[in-house]
């Protein structure tokens, strides 16, 4: 390979914004009877026009997850901005269940803005939530997501994940054998994409540290796959592994002290756990077949992984510290079951599934390991890399659309789908962040 090799770490740069993959969301499948909500445009008492439309951000968030439908502005009978201007009757006539109003003021004597919002239950005629959030104009988008989080939790009882972010890989074919690979970070909806690392060699398997401050990934920048950890804010990074052969699939333990990974230094790929403080390496599986795709149980005591020890990939679980023979097989009814992770309930297993040998279709599915019921959530054929939102409500995954790699998301019940299309390159391997502070 005579191609020029480069790798650069990008720090929150304006430059990186121009090269980002321009993701923007499309709802591809909603539910039949979404909850009607009216979001009145927020008043702004300062000069000029604000760069962000806070009410619009809230509407996008709520509609993207499919549970809500917002009332068109032109159908509103009044445009209240605070509680004393709200007449419940106006909204009941329009068959709205909920109402959000707000206003934005310049904070006196500073560059900051104050966003005051109030959220009402129309049928019960009561205010459910309200507060004043202060931030810079550049943070208005975060404030909008914050408000959407509150509304989502008030209505569904589940915390919203609209302030969460995603890591993903973009690959662009330049010419001949030359590719441009990027590790990018964006808001969950694809907005504000930033390049964290750019390389002429593949980048794979991004994963978040439990506190959301670091990313682990595999980079081939030395011509060999090696694991790195990079601080997302500072760009500072270090190489974690340099074992012979495959070094891949880094995943943080829930307590952030260890990294599960796949190494083939002893012949075939096996699961290992490296202590991040002592660098001590513990071998977890020991089998001449392929063992890969580790994920942690929520209590950090066991690891779920894929192995083709019976001839085809199936999902197994092993308790840490147990003998490597003491492996429990979790899947039986698929030709191939791969890339599995338990939902926080420890019962439902998200995975990639190929049902039958004759049809090489790979779809995202959930197996309940107690009832053995399987729900297949997607109906495209090249679906992979499922990653669950921190509130457990949705799964983002990679698939192909019009011959290009795109990121799709599906609700855990399969009813809602949205897509983040990319304007350039193949986008893949989404990793949904934990709750970020």
């Amino acid at each position, binding site marked *: *390979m005579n191609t020029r*090799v*480069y*790798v*650069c*770490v*990008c*720090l*929150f*740069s*304006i*430059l*990186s914004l121009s090269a980002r993959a321009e993701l923007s969301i499309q709802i591809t499948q909603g539910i039949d009877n979404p909850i009607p909500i009216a979001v009145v445009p927020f008043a702004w008492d300062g000069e000029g026009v604000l760069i962000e439309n806070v009410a619009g951000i809230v509407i996008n968030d709520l509609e993207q997850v499919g549970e809500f439908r917002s009332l068109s502005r032109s159908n509103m009978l009044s445009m209240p901005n605070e509680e004393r201007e709200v007449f419940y009757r106006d909204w009941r006539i329009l068959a709205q269940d909920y109402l959000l109003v707000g206003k934005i003021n310049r904070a006196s004597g500073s560059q900051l803005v104050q966003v005051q919002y109030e959220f009402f239950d129309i049928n019960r005629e009561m205010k459910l939530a309200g507060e004043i959030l202060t931030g810079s104009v*550049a*943070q208005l988008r*975060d404030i909008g997501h914050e408000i959407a989080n509150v509304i989502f939790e008030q209505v569904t009882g589940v915390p919203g994940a609209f302030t969460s972010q995603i890591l993903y890989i973009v*690959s662009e*074919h330049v010419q001949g*054998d030359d*590719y441009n*690979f990027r590790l990018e970070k964006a808001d969950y909806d694809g907005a504000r994409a930033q390049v964290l690392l750019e390389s002429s060699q*593949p980048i*794979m*398997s991004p994963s978040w540290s439990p506190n959301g401050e670091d990313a682990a990934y595999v980079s*081939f*920048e*030395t*011509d*060999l*796959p090696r694991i790195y950890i990079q601080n997302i*804010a500072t*760009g500072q990074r270090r190489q974690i592994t340099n074992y012979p*052969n*495959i070094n*891949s*699939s880094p995943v943080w333990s829930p307590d952030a002290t260890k990294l599960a990974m*796949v190494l*083939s230094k002893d012949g*075939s*790929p096996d699961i290992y756990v490296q202590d991040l403080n002592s660098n001590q390496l513990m071998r977890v599986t020991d089998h001449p077949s*392929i063992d*890969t*795709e580790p994920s942690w149980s929520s209590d950090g005591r066991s690891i779920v992984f*894929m192995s*083709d020890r019976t001839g085809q*990939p199936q999902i197994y679980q092993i308790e840490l510290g147990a003998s490597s023979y003491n492996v429990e097989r979790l899947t039986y009814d698929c030709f*191939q079951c*791969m*890339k599995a992770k338990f939902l926080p309930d420890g019962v439902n297993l998200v995975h*990639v599934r*190929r049902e039958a040998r004759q049809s*090489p279709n*790979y779809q995202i599915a959930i197996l309940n390991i107690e009832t053995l019921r399987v729900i297949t959530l997607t109906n495209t054929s*090249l679906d*992979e*890399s499922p990653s669950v939102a921190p509130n457990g409500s949705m799964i983002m995954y990679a698939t*192909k659309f019009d*011959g290009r790699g795109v990121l799709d998301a599906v609700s855990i019940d399969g009813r809602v789908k949205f897509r983040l299309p990319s304007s350039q390159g193949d986008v*893949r*391997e989404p990793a949904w962040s934990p709750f970020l502070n």
Partner: protein
Amino acid sequence: MGMQHNQFLKISLLVISLVTLAACSSTSETEEVIEDNQGSSSSGSSASTTSAVSSGGQLTQEEIRAQNALRQTVFYFDFDVAEFKPADRDTLVYHARDLAANPGNRLRLEGHADERGTREYNLALGERRANGIMNYFIVNGASRSQIEVVSYGEERPSQSGQTEQAYTRNRRVEVVAR
């Protein structure tokens, strides 16, 4: 959200050029050694070899076969299969003998998979394919230290697209001289 910072840090890595540099020193000897070696090691086909050796500068048929075999550097695989095709066996033997005859030679076996199936499994599958060829080289006289294996899984397709033809071209092991 510190976005005002307009920093841009660029790190160029020279590691790879060092690796290639180290490997380059041995390549010049390769061609001289090929000729006298191939005839002696292929004892089975001595009949055809002797008949072809007429004038001193001409290559024997066996030597031509060897050269043609060494020119094939990409080997394709069936879907979900890690073993190389039986039809490639003879060609691979020539590669192995060439390594055996030229202990200074180094090569890299780059394993690849098509995009179907998960990326991590394909990374492992690419390695399994390359390892299969490496082991066959060793059985046929090459030394383990001459061969480096790296798998790219499905990350570096030879042809993009979701067609059978693209998939067929992407399931491969490439023999790369170092």
